[in-house]
């Protein structure tokens, strides 16, 4: 099981979370989910996922804070993070980009298969040892 990639989804919109998780179930990945920033951060630091889908607007601790906290961590500073945003979050996205975010999706503009398709290259890059 360990060769399965671990993916963490931190998202408070449960329908979106379940849709993304439901779709990913058909991939060879192990899925973790959290619906608020704080438990998302805790779960990330505990499970060390290979990739994190992170919503920006989150209860308890917002996504930007989670991102900054992760980048402070020796493991977390290199983890692949993909932001999930609303259209109005562009300022926050710009701020997040400074913290080495790999990609962002404006949720309503992409279908789930599209999001997964565009994310696959980051996951496959982990398979090639030349790329860190």
């Amino acid at each position, binding site marked *: 099981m360990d060769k399965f990639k671990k993916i963490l989804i931190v998202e408070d*919109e*449960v*329908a*979106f979370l*379940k*849709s*993304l998780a*439901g*779709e990913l179930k*058909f991939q060879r990945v192990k899925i973790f989910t959290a619906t*608020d920033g704080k438990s998302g951060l805790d779960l990330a630091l505990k499970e060390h996922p290979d990739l994190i889908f992170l919503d920006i*607007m989150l*209860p*308890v601790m917002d996504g930007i804070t989670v991102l900054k906290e992760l980048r402070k961590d020796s493991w977390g500073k290199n983890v692949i993070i993909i932001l999930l945003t*609303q*259209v*109005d979050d562009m300022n926050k996205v710009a701020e997040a980009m400074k913290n080495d975010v790999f990609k962002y999706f404006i*949720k*309503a503009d992409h*279908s*789930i*298969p599209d999001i997964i398709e565009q994310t696959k290259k980051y996951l496959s890059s982990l398979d090639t040892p030349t790329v860190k």
Partner: protein
Amino acid sequence: MYDIIVLAVAVVSMLAGIAFYARSRVLMFEMENKEKETSRRMYELAILKELGDRIGYSLDIHQIIDIITGSLRQFIEYSAVSYMLLQPEKVIFKVQLEKSVHRKFINEIRDRMLNSLSALLDKELKNSAVEEVLSGAILIEEVNEPVRSFFNIPLVIGDKVVGVLTVSDIKPGLYKEEEMTILYKITQQASKAVSKLEEVVKTEQRKLNSMVESMADGVVMTDNDYRVVVANPAVKLTLGIGKNIEPTIFDFIDNLGGKFDIRGKLEESIKLGKVLETPEALIGERFFQILVSPVRSVTTMSNGEILGGVVIFHDITREKELEELRKDFTSMMVHELRSPLDGISKMADLIIRKKAVIKAKQITDEYLPIIYKNSSDMLRLVSDLLDAAKVESGKYQISKEPAVDIRKLVDERIKFYEPSAKENHIVITSMIADDVPNAIALDPNAITEVFNNLISNSLKFNKEGGEIAIQIFTHKDKSDILSEAKKAGVKWFVKAADKALATLSSSTLVAITDSGSGISQDNISLLFNKFKQFKTAALTPNKKGTGLGLVISKGIIEAHGGVIGAASEEGVGSTFYFNLPYEPALEIKS
């Protein structure tokens, strides 16, 4: 005999002729007099009309007297008509010569007039202060004739002597009462008109001054040399200039601290004669829209001349805040509506695409409840938004029932909320004073919603082991609500300073007091604001509801003719209150 007859006839006819002559002489004289009188009247009217036409609304006394003196010769014979006008620092002496005179003549009238003016003003006037202007005929040395006819008419505006008008001639005995009367009448008429105009101007000026004084916008006006002419209290407050200071332009430059180039803008505005607008400038902690405009003269003499500039500071901080709230509101709308809708859409898409592989049980047990929850949340939000919009546009409709038992209504609400209150170890108590009527005209569904909103808020923001007190008592018109509440045993945080309660008519008062964390004074004023509430609610973790409940409750209570309000003590608790005014019919019954 014949001769005698002839003579007699001749004498008779002569006598008759004499008599006729005499009579016609009298008639002619009367006619002449009448004609004279008429022409004088005509002249009077003409000159007054001319004054009216040419002066318009001018208050320029020079101009008015010039018009009088310019047309006087039609009626009065004179060598010179002259006037002396008192100015702040000098005396103007203007002479219009009809005939050539000797210099001594001028000196004589000048001395006489100055003496009269001194006497009228009871004040010594120096000859050196007199500024002389001669016009008309020239001075001739040969005509060495003194002043033989002369009369003065004082020029009075309001109750103040401002000068004298003089008619003089080298011929003796020229001026009788008639001439003096007519000139006196004319000057008096003119003086009356000017006095009246001055009074109007003064009243307007006072109005204008008090308007500028009481304006919420900061106003500062300078002349062309940037001397501050007017600075109203608002502008002083805005820029932190002491109330009793007469500020200079440098005070403004210093206190603006480079945030706005007041001198530069004034210079530009005065030079170009244009209004300059600075849409937004941050001064201190507030935003201002600043207008700089040239000030133009509007008097007939110097029409359009630029007298200086005015700077108006219009505080737009509140507008900016509302704009921010509106923006937040829009982004919250995106989050609260678009996000769950997007979720539903994606979930349905997943089910459709993977219908071959997803188990039916997962759809019914996992996915459908989420779709149901999202859609009901959105439905509630949309309904609340619509209600709030109705409240805002004043179209919130209630349907009153004539006799609702409020005791029963409250009991039902307590039963409804008791389970969730118990979960949080919160006690809900009720106290309804005996004099509260059993039958009150109200919309039971709408008032139930108000209770729901207020009680659920009290639960949400209460502490564990806290209390919620629902209290109802009667207020009689003109009685002191605080003592009525005290007598009824109401626990609340309302203070005497609460203005909303001061003007309530006879009504049933409901107060819901909690032992929560309380609300700061600043936030109380925003409680019933749609934008603010929505934002707060959207950012609150584990939120329930849309935050629009208070906005809608306000609409419901106002539709009942009542007021809703809140009072609080931070860290101790809050009270939300509303009143339901008595219906006139019910008041008679009770």
